[in-house]
């Protein structure tokens, strides 16, 4: 019973890890896989017709950057390591007990 809980817990940790990775990548994809930092506004350049000067127009827009896949991967790495570690520990203990 105890070992089966540990096995389920280990699978749960692996699942959370994969979920973190997927969320990080999905958020990053929402921003168009930008290889840059997260921004909360984007600048669009427009042209003043008489002077022909380019000028910036700022628009509030959240575009996730590289922090999201990096943070997702780090979290995933932690959860996956814990999950696989616990799984290996549980199986080695049960092997020893059965022998």
């Amino acid at each position, binding site marked *: 019973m105890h070992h089966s809980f540990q096995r389920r817990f280990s699978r749960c940790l692996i699942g959370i890890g994969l979920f973190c990775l997927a969320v990080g990548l999905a958020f990053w994809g929402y921003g168009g896989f930008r290889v840059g*930092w997260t921004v909360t506004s984007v600048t669009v350049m427009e042209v003043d017709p008489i*002077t022909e000067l380019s000028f*910036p127009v700022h628009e509030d827009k959240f575009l996730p950057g590289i922090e999201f896949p990096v943070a997702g991967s780090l979290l995933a790495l932690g959860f996956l390591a814990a999950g696989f570690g616990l799984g290996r520990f549980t199986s080695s203990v049960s092997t020893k007990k059965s022998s």
Partner: protein
Amino acid sequence: MTVSTIKRLLLAAGLGLTAAALSAAPIEFDFKDPKGVNNIVFQLDAPLESINGTATGISGNVHYDPDDPASLKGRIVVEAGSLHVGNPLMREHLHGNGWLNVQAHPEIQFEVESVDAYERTDERNVLATLSGTMTIKGVAKPMTVQARLTYLPGMLRARGGIDADGDLLVVRSDFPISRTDFGIRPGQNLDRVADEIRLTLSLAGIAPRG
């Protein structure tokens, strides 16, 4: 020739001279643009992506005589707090004590003291070499920059933003500065943010008449 004819001739000559003197006088252009178009784009190289931002809080006055570009003098002021980048944390750092310290140094300015050389490229455009003093974060340094000056007489109303007749002076310039020269984290974080800051000025000054 009667006395009245002589009087008329003298009056006409006087008016002509006054008009000539007026046309030769430098025009004062105000760079606080009512359309809010005036801007400076700044760019710094960084490993992940270049840092691009804009500054829009621009004001100042320039005296410019289209017939004598060498007489140009004036001052362009940028509100340091108007510097904008898309990443809010980066913007906070840029305005903070380590970088521009906008609380203590709210203005960046360039004072044009002389025109070293100029070349008239067509009726309206002049390429000029301007010398003056750039002040950033309280540090003043002499600088020489290239600028393209475009004089647009009578175009103010057509452009909009202000209900008045008048002239426009468009100033375009692109030049680098060194952040070390102006005490902006001198010699620090060079592996993460380049020392050179590229500035692109797109400015229009207005001179309403009457």
